[in-house]
């Protein structure tokens, strides 16, 4: 299983700040992209958030900035959020 966190407008649009999903594939290792593809199939809200038309999205695996092809393993914490705007 992978713990997924959503921040800012992604959380607003999905109506949730976190959820746990099964790792796609054989459960050993997957990628951010594969998990996003799985999420997109969950319905219109997910499709809108992870679709081409949505704003730019960044991600982090275990609290480190990650890329779409970064590996994700069982027990990892995966976060999706917009580009940061602090300071």
């Amino acid at each position: 299983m992978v713990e997924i966190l959503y921040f800012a407008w992604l959380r607003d649009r999905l109506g949730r700040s976190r959820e746990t999903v099964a790792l796609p594939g054989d459960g050993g290792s997957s990628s951010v992209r594969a998990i996003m593809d799985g999420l997109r199939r969950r319905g219109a809200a997910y499709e809108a958030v992870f679709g081409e038309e949505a704003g730019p999205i960044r991600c982090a695996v275990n609290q480190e900035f990650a890329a779409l092809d970064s590996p994700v393993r069982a027990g990892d914490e995966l976060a999706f959020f917009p580009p940061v705007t602090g300071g």
Partner: protein
Amino acid sequence: MRVDIRVQEETFSLDAELARLADAGLEMGGIGAFVGVVRGDAGLAALVLEHYPGMTESMIARIVDQAGSRFGLLACTVVHRVGRLPVGAPIVLVLCAAAHRGAALDATGFVIDWLKTQAPFWKREEYPDGQARWVAARPSDEEAAARWGTAGPAES
């Protein structure tokens, strides 16, 4: 290097933060500081800031660590507020203490530039009519960070 990193709802006192640097060493000759404030753009009422607890602190720690070795800092304090902050309220404080003013002020710019682009905070604008809007990242912030000529703390 004396490091203090805090994410909090409460405001901060520069005098109190400065007093905490007293033990940073006799070699301290200058302290650079930056205070970010909620700007009253276009009738804005307030900003609401959220962050990614845990990742925020570790990213700021990495930025501060890079600044410390690059500029030879004696102390660095970063206090970043979250929650609802009305126009005029302080958002963030960066304090960098060094032997000389050039290092202290350069480090202050370095920390705030990277904090803007690599610390996981997000701002939502609230207007008096109830409208709200998530702030988009600004390319100028990426450019400001890029001028330091490093890949940035996220890559380290």
